């Protein structure tokens, strides 16, 4: 029977974003794939050349909108490297807490989209319900549910509100029980297992060669987590460990392994948050006013030509890097060049090749297990 190309996307319920995946099928088996990206390219890097360093932060929130806080943090570390600012420790703790809350929210969003891909429609609503808890926390802290514009060069915009710590701890503990509920629904369900196990094998060596990072390689046994390997912020002071899954097959990590890694990462994030809120310098119930030196250090606003700043950060989906060159317009108020390395941009072409050899029905399973977010891919 002849082979045919099927176009999945740009408008398709499965694609987790706006892109096209063309697959060549022979009956039900995938023989070749071709990915087309760029539908939501907004030119963030170019826009940044005309904005101050403070004004760029809201744009970075919108890179990966599901995981906004981590991307804003990632950019801010690069700006702080460029402007040579020392960040107070309380601000680092607050950044850690907000980033881990965001990681939880992002992983829940992933799961809520992945469930319906496999067919478990109930999961979508459950994940949204639990994500609300963390969105409310981030709303109290940052001022809105999705695009917070919270970190500032030299610290954070405002301190944690009084009483935030109690609510944070209570919600995180509630969520830890909820993870068990999810595992009851999924890990202890035959149909979920037969859909995910044995599907989408991805070899550790191939992935490292291709540049994939994040939970995807940790599922294959590679112990590389930027927070663990090159600790930034206060990740070396809180009690946690990276979630690395040793795959059961020599062929590499299958979808089930990647799913397990993210569930364990959620547990680790809960652990981190509970530890960080106890250790935060200045106390968890004090509230310093905005601009206080405990949470925001004075920072220069101009960077001379020739200065560069670089950050290497563990975003939810992999390792993101920002590279800023100073000396742009306004005598250095704007960057000359802002370059963003998006983990998903590297991963998606690799994933497209992973799907070869499996069935059409496995395409959403494999795609979803790599957790694509096209916002950061297209920038």
């Amino acid at each position, binding site marked *: 029977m002849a082979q045919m190309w099927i176009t999945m996307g740009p408008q398709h319920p499965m694609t987790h974003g706006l892109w096209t995946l063309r697959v060549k099928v022979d009956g039900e088996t995938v023989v070749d794939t071709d990915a087309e990206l760029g539908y939501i390219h907004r030119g963030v890097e170019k826009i940044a050349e005309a*904005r*101050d360093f*403070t*004004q*760029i*932060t*809201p*744009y970075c929130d919108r890179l990966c909108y599901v995981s906004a806080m981590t991307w804003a943090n990632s950019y801010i570390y690069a700006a702080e490297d460029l402007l040579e600012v020392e960040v107070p420790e309380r601000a680092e703790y607050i950044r850690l807490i907000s980033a881990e809350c965001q990681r939880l929210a992002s992983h829940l969003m992933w799961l809520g989209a992945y469930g319906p891909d496999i067919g478990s429609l*109930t999961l979508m609503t*459950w994940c949204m*319900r*639990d994500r*609300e*808890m963390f969105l*409310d926390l981030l*709303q*109290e*802290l940052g*001022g*809105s549910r999705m*695009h917070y*514009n919270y970190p500032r060069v030299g610290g954070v*915009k*405002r301190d944690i*509100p*009084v*009483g935030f710590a*109690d*609510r944070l701890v*209570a*919600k995180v503990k*509630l969520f830890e*029980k*909820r993870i068990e*509920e999810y*595992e*009851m*629904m999924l*890990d*202890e*369900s*035959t*149909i979920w*297992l*037969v859909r995910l*196990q044995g599907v989408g094998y991805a070899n550790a060596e191939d992935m490292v060669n291709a540049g994939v990072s994040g939970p995807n390689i940790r599922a294959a046994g590679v112990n590389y987590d930027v927070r663990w390997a090159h600790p930034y912020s206060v990740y070396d002071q809180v009690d946690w460990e990276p*979630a*690395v*899954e*040793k795959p*059961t097959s020599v062929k590499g990590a299958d979808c*089930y392994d990647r799913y*397990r*890694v993210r569930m*364990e990462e959620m547990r680790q994030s809960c652990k981190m948050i509970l530890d960080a809120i106890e250790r935060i310098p200045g106390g968890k*119930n004090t509230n310093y006013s*905005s601009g206080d030196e405990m949470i925001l250090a004075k920072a220069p606003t101009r960077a001379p030509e020739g200065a560069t700043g670089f950050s290497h950060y563990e975003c939810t989906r992999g390792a993101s890097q920002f590279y800023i060159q100073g000396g742009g317009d306004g005598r250095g108020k704007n960057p000359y060049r802002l370059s963003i390395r998006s983990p998903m941009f590297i991963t998606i072409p690799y994933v497209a090749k992973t799907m070869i050899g499996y069935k059409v029905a496995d395409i959403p399973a494999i795609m979803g297990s790599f957790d694509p977010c096209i916002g950061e891919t297209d920038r």
Partner: protein
Amino acid sequence: MPMHPHAQPNFRNLFWYPFKITLITALRTFPFIGKRFGKRLGAYHNTSHPEFLDDASRARAASSAEMNDITRQEFAPDRVTSDLKPTLWKPQTVQYPYERLEDMEPWLFVPGNYNGRIGVIWETCTACKMCVNICPNDCLHMTTELRVDVLDNAEGEHGGLGMELEVGKFAAVPKEEVVKELATFNHVTAHQDVPQEWRFAEVLDLSGTSATVRWNDSGKESVVEQSELRTADDQIVSGRIDLGRCMFCGLCMESCGFTSFFMTNEYDGMSGFTRQDLWFDASRTRVLPSVHQEAVDAELAKRASKERTKRAKKAAKAAAETAKPAEAQKGDA
């Protein structure tokens, strides 16, 4: 990290766990049954969480109750909140607009923390343009409008410090019926612009205690007593905000050093059918009346004292001027 201990595709996992957990979730949404099964797997909305509330947040919620208080908005149906039935277990859905999130979680929308609709107190704005410059999206526009300044409208202890009427400049007369209406007008609930309480006119001639004015609305001229007129200035700062472009990042609020620019806690009420509806002009950027009044009073006191100091200095200088020739005269003689 090993696989989940029960993660084996066998007969048990086919029938037992997914059915059990969906049954528990469903039963938990019904009252009384929910209480039996609900304790094990806690719920979030529609349940009571004493650990979430503490004295500080209760105090803050109480102090911000007026700022957050959209209960008195008559455009929404009467608010039925779950406060009435705090211990019944229900599905996690918050039935907006009957149940509103700020009732269920009063610690949300903390004033100053939430990036809601923009609110500007124009009386205290000094037109420094910091907000316009910091906005990443160019959505703020500064203009001028014809208005009666606070100082010109003051009575009582701060009265008489305003500008004088001048030919070629503007004056205004209060509209009595509008002033009466404004006493009970609540811009938060009315969902329409505040009615204009002044009738503006251009001063053509001043003679004695009367002034000849040409009214702006009709173009006709008439003679009015000067005591009835207030000075109006057409260079008072005003502005427009394009909410269609605004990304609610809050940078404008931070940059305003004179605390005239706020982001209120309102998250709804900003919709329209056309893009032009989203251009909010000055009347739609009002903050809550109490906050507004407080700021205006403070500004009035500040400007009045500044004006008094200025006039005292001028009077002293004039006295010094008249004293000098007298002295010179005295000195000469």
